[in-house]
């Protein structure tokens, strides 16, 4: 297998009610990535496009084909990757595998989503399609409901009072907003307080409004190339040194293992093993904080905190710049926004920027970051991880 690098990245603003279509948003992010790579559309050999719910938000399937055409990447194979919120990450992982295999030299991968076009009731309904539609959705399950149940289970399993856990969860959201303020692409550029989180309306107990990421529109994209090609195109290649992906059964089928997500542990181990690295080697991490409790559960599953202890680390500031392991310095899904099909590409964009050292001006550069970890969760159990490394 050949070494593979990311040679260019692009990212639209994340927002509510975008004036652009899903094709337009993807193409804007993608053209920035192509230009940054010093390439032309004709150089792209294949396109992997993450998208979750375009069928419902715009009545559009097979948008990847129109994206290729809009970009001027005429007639290249274009494939949609659907893994709910992990759609773009699995598209990037597959792009890396195609290039590593030698079949392609240059692949464009990313994602796009226009969730806010659906409005909250339909968006809540379609996001809930990421549960088992026959055995679990009939009970009225929603995405916040899934993580609400995990929060109560976490409190009971690790014997942490719900009051204490909720305070720690609130601190996760507060930290995300603090960094989101400095991210020009973020949907919310506004600081919040623990008191404000704890006084928001209840969405699915114990999760209140500011424990939850928003519905968002946006796109992000990266160009993946072989090492040989990468060295000709850029003096700042960021290598994809480890990848992992794993799947899960419905929530009830994950039973005894919960609130841990076994798929995350399987996936990240693949990525660590492939990279020859471990959690102690990670300098910066973007993890899937769709809900405040999701950050705590993810940090533990990735090996960045002991089980039952991640909340303490957020409380002590160990997940900030200057702490033990800086997490979601982009603002995370919570503050940056969560256009589901684009999220994994957005996380990858952020880690690439960190590893290139390009966030100094934004006041959120992790000094000397060399190795970064991407963690994305789709539905109730598709996990994909990427480990990126600066040369």
């Amino acid at each position, binding site marked *: 297998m050949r070494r593979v690098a990311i040679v260019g990245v692009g990212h639209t603003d994340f927002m509510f009610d975008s004036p652009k279509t899903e094709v337009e948003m993807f193409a804007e992010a993608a053209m920035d990535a192509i230009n940054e790579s010093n390439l032309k559309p004709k150089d792209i050999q294949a396109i992997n496009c993450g998208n979750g719910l375009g069928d419902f938000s715009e009545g559009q399937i097979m948008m990847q084909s129109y994206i290729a055409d809009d970009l001027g990447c005429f007639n290249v194979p274009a494939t949609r990757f659907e893994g709910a919120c992990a759609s773009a990450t699995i598209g990037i992982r597959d792009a890396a595998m195609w290039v590593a295999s030698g079949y392609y030299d240059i692949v464009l991968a990313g994602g796009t989503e226009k969730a806010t076009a659906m409005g*909250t*009731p*339909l968006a*809540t*309904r379609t996001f*809930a*399609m990421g549960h*088992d*539609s*026959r*055995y*679990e*959705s*009939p*009970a*009225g*399950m*929603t995405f*916040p*409901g899934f993580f*609400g*149940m*995990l929060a*109560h*289970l976490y*409190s*009971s399993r690790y014997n942490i009072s*719900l009051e204490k856990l909720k305070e720690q969860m609130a601190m996760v959201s507060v930290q995300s907003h603090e960094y989101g303020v400095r991210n020009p692409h973020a949907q919310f550029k506004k600081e919040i307080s623990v008191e404000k989180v704890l006084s928001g*309306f*209840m*969405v*699915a*107990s*114990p*999760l209140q409004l500011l424990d939850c990421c928003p519905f968002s529109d946006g796109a992000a994209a990266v160009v993946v190339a072989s090492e040989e090609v990468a060295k000709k195109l850029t003096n700042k290649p960021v290598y994809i040194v480890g990848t992992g992906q794993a799947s899960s*059964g*419905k*929530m*009830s*089928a994950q*039973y*005894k293992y*919960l609130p841990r997500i076994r798929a995350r542990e399987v996936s990240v181990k693949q990525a660590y093993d492939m990279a020859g690295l471990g959690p102690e080697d990670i300098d910066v991490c973007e993890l899937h904080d769709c809900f405040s409790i999701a950050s705590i559960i993810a940090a533990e599953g990735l090996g960045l905190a002991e089980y039952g202890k991640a909340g303490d680390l957020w409380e002590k500031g160990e997940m900030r710049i200057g702490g033990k392991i800086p997490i979601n310095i982009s603002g995370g899904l919570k503050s940056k926004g969560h256009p589901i099909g684009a999220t994994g590409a957005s996380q990858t964009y952020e880690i690439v920027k960190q590893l290139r050292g390009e966030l100094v001006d934004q006041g959120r550069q992790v000094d000397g970051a060399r190795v970064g970890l991407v963690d994305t969760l789709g539905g109730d159990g598709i996990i994909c991880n990427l480990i990126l490394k600066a040369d």
Partner: protein
Amino acid sequence: MEYKLTFREYNKSLKTDKLLGLKCNNCHTITCPPKMTCQECASTDLEVTELSGEGKIVTYTVIYVAPEGRENETPYAVVLVELKEGPWIMGNLIDIDPARVGMELIGRQVKLGHKVFPGDKYSDGDAARPLFSFAD
């Protein structure tokens, strides 16, 4: 290979308050809701068995923001129940004021009933959902 217990058969039975699962002849694990294989050892040597419908609540949430078409049900409680026979299943909890329940629910003994979700335009028909009430 055909399923030993399909969704359609499981659903038909749940509508009469009978909870069906699959007993593994290899490792004796009970799988419920049904799958093609045993949820522990992946064996296909399974037989259909009727479960007690009794168990305890392991976690819960009360939902205030509902999917489209379910808004008039809010707030409602969703629970995961560990059945006496081992598996966990998801359902709703009744005979409570959903706005007033808390962590004291975890560990409470419950028994199974059902209610039919009539379905919506995306659901391929109706589906019975477990409806739990306190047994202790």
